[in-house]
């Protein structure tokens, strides 16, 4: 037992939050008091085969197939991928491409289902008794249910649950910070389904083999905090609710771990290197449903908000429901929105086409009015340093911007371009309204492209070198073969020439060839 470290006893960060960060108007009151409601089954569901980080799932159904609720329609492909299930019963009317819920709106492989309104379940996944199940069984069940990180990162959860094989883990952190303005879906879920979340948390903790659980909730969610505080153990693993300051980007994984443990995750490393794994609260709920009831991930809670929406609400929506239908369910628009976002206003993505589907990582649908998204003129940088003060990573965004604008990507890389978590604090706080994080996005894309090209070049070079080596080896072998044959011929000739008298020197001549054999 080591003596507790002084830094662990007094951590100013617990009271003052993370370095930098901003305090945008949260506007959570718009939807925070609306209980989660179930949305009626829409007539069409468009289920993309890629709703997660990693490889796209492989479709298992064809046009005109009948599917039942919970049926596997897309199988995970490769180690980092996720299963896709039919969210309700109906008929597959297309396995093709449809616009992605992404700013590009580019078509991606999508299974379109015409629902039959029966909502009839097929066979459920086999249930587990987590108290007796092995960690591997739990992780396999989570993988089978197609659960991904529901905070927005959409990393396949099972992969994260298997981290115990490689890392020495001691703490599971449940991220209930929900630091993005407007969003209230995790808040509502924790208020209304605390017991189920606690159970799911316990199951995950068991799979990870950790000794303790910390549920981190921002201080502005008093009810969620008291709801979760009713539990001090989950599956007999000690659970503690930790209130964290309300500050954006508190929900950033590495920053949350810093607040909770006082330890900073090294650059390019994972929080697992510190023995900590972070999962989202909604993910815990999905794990509970999968393990206890054998329900795959078929729906999720989405916050529908923004002043352009007539009735802001928290809605449980089937995966694949078109965004426009969810808005219609909330009584449509009160006024013409300036922009439509998936996710929160800080990191959310604007969409052009309202018919794109809700996917596993969609935490919010925001229709913002012009007044909510002040579009100010961009002024020159006055070096006020607000961006550097706000940056939770400790970068100097104005310098990054200057270097990127002069196409000096390498220079930008030297001052931390790739350490940027694109939280958007810099752009939010800039009095000149310079699109800093947007420029950084652009540069990261450029850098990735260059990296890809470099990788490709190197790979080509490597392959060419390998081929050359192979050819040389073949030529060398051939040459040796020729030389050997020549020597043999030579030897035979000499033998034949000196055949009548048995000559001892000829045998000595044949010696090298013989040795090669």
């Amino acid at each position, binding site marked *: 037992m080591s003596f507790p470290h002084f830094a662990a006893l007094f951590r100013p960060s617990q009271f003052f939050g993370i370095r930098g960060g901003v305090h945008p108007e949260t506007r959570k009151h718009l939807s925070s008091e609306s209980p989660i409601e179930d949305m009626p089954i829409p007539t069409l569901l468009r289920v993309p085969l890629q709703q997660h980080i990693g490889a796209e799932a492989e479709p298992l159904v064809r046009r005109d197939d009948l599917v039942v609720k919970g049926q596997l329609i897309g199988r995970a492909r490769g180690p980092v991928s996720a299963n896709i299930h039919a969210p309700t019963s109906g008929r597959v009317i297309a396995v093709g491409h449809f616009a992605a819920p992404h*700013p590009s709106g580019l078509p991606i492989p999508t299974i379109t289902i015409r629902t039959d309104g029966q909502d009839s379940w097929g066979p459920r996944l086999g249930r587990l008794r987590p108290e007796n199940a092995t960690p591997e069984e739990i992780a396999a069940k989570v993988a089978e249910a197609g659960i991904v990180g529901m905070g927005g990162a959409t990393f396949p959860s099972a992969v994260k649950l298997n981290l115990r094989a490689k890392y020495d883990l001691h703490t599971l952190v449940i991220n209930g910070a929900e630091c993005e303005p407007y969003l209230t879906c995790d808040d509502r879920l924790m208020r209304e389904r605390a017991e189920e979340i606690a159970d799911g948390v316990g199951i995950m903790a068991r799979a990870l083999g950790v000794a303790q659980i910390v549920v981190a909730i921002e201080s502005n969610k008093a009810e969620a905090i008291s709801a979760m505080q009713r539990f001090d153990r989950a599956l007999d693993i000690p659970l503690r609710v930790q209130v964290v300051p309300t500050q954006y980007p508190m929900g950033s994984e590495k920053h949350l771990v810093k607040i909770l443990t006082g330890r900073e995750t090294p650059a390019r490393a994972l929080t697992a290197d510190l023995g900590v794994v972070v999962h989202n609260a909604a993910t815990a709920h999905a794990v509970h449903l999968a393990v206890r009831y054998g329900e795959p991930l078929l729906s999720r809670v989405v916050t529908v908000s923004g002043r352009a929406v007539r009735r802001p609400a928290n809605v449980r929506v089937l995966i694949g429901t078109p965004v426009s239908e969810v808005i219609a369910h909330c009584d449509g628009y009160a006024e013409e929105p300036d922009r439509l976002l998936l996710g929160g206003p800080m990191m959310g*993505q604007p969409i052009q086409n309202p018919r794109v589907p809700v996917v596993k990582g969609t935490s919010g649908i925001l229709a913002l009015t012009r007044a909510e998204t002040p579009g100010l003129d961009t002024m020159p940088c006055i070096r006020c340093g607000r961006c550097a003060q706000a940056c939770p990573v400790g970068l100097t965004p104005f310098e990054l911007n200057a270097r990127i604008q002069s196409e000096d990507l390498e220079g930008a890389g030297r001052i931390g371009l790739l350490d940027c978590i694109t939280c958007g604090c810099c752009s939010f706080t800039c009095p000149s309204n310079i699109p800093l994080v947007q420029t950084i996005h652009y540069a990261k894309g450029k850098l990735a492209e260059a990296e890809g090209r470099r990788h490709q070049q190197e790979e080509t070079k490597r392959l060419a070198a390998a081929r050359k080596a192979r050819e040389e080896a073949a030529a060398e072998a051939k040459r040796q073969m020729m030389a050997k044959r020549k020597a043999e011929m030579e030897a035979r000739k000499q033998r034949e020439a000196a055949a009548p008298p048995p000559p001892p020197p000829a045998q000595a001549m044949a010696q090298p060839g013989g040795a090669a054999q």
Partner: protein
Amino acid sequence: MTAPLIISGPHTHTLFTVSRTMLTVSAALAPATLFGLWMFGWPAIFLFLVTVASAWLFEVACLRVAGKPVARFAGDGSAILTGWLVAMTLPPYAPWWLGGTGSAIAIVIAKHLFGGLGQNLFNPAMVARAMLLIALPVHMTTWVAPVGLPEGPGFLDGLAITFAGSQEFDAVSSASTLSHIKSQIGAGATMSEIAPDLAGLEARLIGLVPGSLGETSTILLLLGGIALMALRIVTPVIPLSVLGTLAGLSALASTLAPDRFAPPLLHLTSGSTMLCAFFIATDYVTSPVTAMGKFVYGVAIGALVFVIRTWGSFPEGVAFAVLLMNACTPLIETYVRPRVFGRTRTGKPLPVKARAPRGGKR
């Protein structure tokens, strides 16, 4: 670069803007300025108006020549603020062309020749002050006693002083605190001999001493500075390090040789110490951005002010100290950088500490 605007967040923004920043700084400067205008009367008021108005006109002209959107930039308040700061540093009875020249130097040379808003290496107001001080030392050091608006020259006399260079009004010309000390110590007097001639501490705090138009009232400038810090327009790092270093060095020097050096309170309450610490040295454009850089910058300014005031040939060294450190700002920024999350100060990733292995799981 228009495409990224729509494809990524944030889709919300703080209400803080450049023009608001400029407006707040102006508001914080206002009490000390109004006090100066009242104490020095009509000539000061005319000089102030001429300087600010000409700064704005030069700004508009430069924007037009540079082909920048005049309406957007001329309304941001930065040129007004620059002209304002130039006026604050001028002797109150200075002729109108001194103010106009100061504005021209500040706006045309120091700001727009470097590329306009945000691009200038040197603080425009300090460039103007330093150039005027070197080129026109007599005009720049002709001080008058503050007698108050009602006692001073009337409206017409004021016009005559500012615009016609009239010497008719019998202004009580006198030396500023710092120039008095400089000349007396230079003549071989000791501090204890000079002390009785100097204005009292209250007079220096309130501003009842001869000096530049807007630099006399220590207390009002201090209040304005505190307001700026409270409103988070400036961080306290630069003001505290400038004032702290100046006070520390002068305390040390006056303890070691009380006869040859002015005491710290005198340094803090005379000349443009307060204006410099809160409004000049904290200029965004020309000071380092990071807290550590600001500290280095502030300490160096404080030390330079002390050195120039004590051993330099000018009684006041603020302008030179600030300009010297402005030149060092890029250097400071290159070497003093914030630590990046998950990295050491040198930019290497933090070491992944191995925990005690548990049950051979590694």
